[in-house]
């Protein structure tokens, strides 16, 4: 078979072509409908994927945010009085407002300091607090938290007392590098007062920390020491343990807070 015969054969093969009933408008309508369906399918897939991603994020966040060592954070028997989860980035916001444990819930103690140092610090705090804040009775101090990640860098202690206006509590943070905050971080998100320079050239900063209600406030004095450590003393207008008995004033003055914060015997070493 030659190429010419092939050409002729192919022409002849389509000789009995049936009539064409082609409707261009119907074809275009069909194409547009298919395009719309494809868009709907794509939108559905996008929404589905977004939903899966969102659900995955929501479900995985609690696992990511939960600390690996909850014992170090849960310092106050589940009803956390102060929270210091890791190195504070913005400082003050992590120490207030305080949750409200029930009055029957005792403050627990988690110790990581060497036994002798712990006892020494506790005993000294009880005596020193009574001296600095006259009129207080039943003064009791507890080291409530020692961050195990920074055994020599972060200690939180609480001092309980009774005052003529009722029961009260003071929280003391002793922190050193690398978890100690800077003066700049200290004033982030809180109202800072006029700093007071100490005889040795160091500075004590003051801040007012808003609480969960307008009447609940905390006064903090932070002593930024020359060795890089920071001692913060915070007193509240209410008893932070049960969260009741809101008073008009904070039971400790700025000076009393400063004296405690700058006490050289309140140190990590």
């Amino acid at each position, binding site marked *: 078979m030659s190429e010419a015969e092939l050409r002729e054969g192919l022409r002849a*093969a389509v000789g009995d072509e049936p009539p064409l009933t082609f409707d261009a*408008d119907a074809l275009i309508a069909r194409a547009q409908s298919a395009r719309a369906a494809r868009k709907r399918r794509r939108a559905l897939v996008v929404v589905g994927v977004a939903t899966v991603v969102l659900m995955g994020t929501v479900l995985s966040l609690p696992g990511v945010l939960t600390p690996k060592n909850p014992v170090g954070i849960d310092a106050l028997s589940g009803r956390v009085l102060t929270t210091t989860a890791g190195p504070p980035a913005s400082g003050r916001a992590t120490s207030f407002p305080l949750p409200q444990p029930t009055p029957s819930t005792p403050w627990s103690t988690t110790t990581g300091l060497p036994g002798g140092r712990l006892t020494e610090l506790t005993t000294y705090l009880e005596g020193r607090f009574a001296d600095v804040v006259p009129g207080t009775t039943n003064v009791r101090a507890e080291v409530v938290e020692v961050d195990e990640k920074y055994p020599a860098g972060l200690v939180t202690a609480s001092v309980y007392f009774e005052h003529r206006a009722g029961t009260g509590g003071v929280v003391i943070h002793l922190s050193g590098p690398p978890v100690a905050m800077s003066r700049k971080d200290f004033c982030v998100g809180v109202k800072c007062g006029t700093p007071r320079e100490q005889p040795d050239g160091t500075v004590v900063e003051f801040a007012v920390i808003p609480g969960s209600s307008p009447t609940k406030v905390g006064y903090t004095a932070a002593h930024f020491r020359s060795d890089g450590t920071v001692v913060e003393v915070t007193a509240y207008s209410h008893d932070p343990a049960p969260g009741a008995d809101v008073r008009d004033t904070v039971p400790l003055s700025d000076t009393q807070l400063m004296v405690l914060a700058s006490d050289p015997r309140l140190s990590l070493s």
Partner: protein
Amino acid sequence: MRKADERAFRDFAVGHAAALRRTAFLFCGDWHTAEDLMQLSLLKLYQAWHRVEWRDHPSAYARKVLLRTWLDEKRRPWRRVEQRDGEVPDVADSSSDPELAGERLWARDLVHAALLRVPPRQRAVLVLRYFEDLPVSEVAVAMGCTEGTVKSQTARGLVALRAAVEELEEGVVVAS
């Protein structure tokens, strides 16, 4: 799609639908399937009509789409299981000269039947070269291969077609 584009596509579709169906028929050997292939190809062409680079050669692009659509169809399982017995249905002779018309019908059916025995890609090359009268370069574009491949496929296709024709003729002779 803009109105102007839609009008251009409509004009193209109306003008080329018959030619595309004929080519599709030579590919697949069935007018119903050819109609489906033509419609499907034009649908795909509508979706791609906005591509400016194909505006200058919509016919070549349409042929390419048609060929791809047919090859895709052949790969589908329900197409693969289809078996053809090679028998051509009787067609009424409308010609005034029964002898001449019969001869023409015989030649037409013989080529068509033989063409269906040629492998798909070789068949496509033969149709594009000898029915559409396309040069080798355009066939290469439509097939998505090199010109050398087109030439070799053409040569093999012709050999396969001649063998199929001889086989069919021998079968007819033996049968008669």
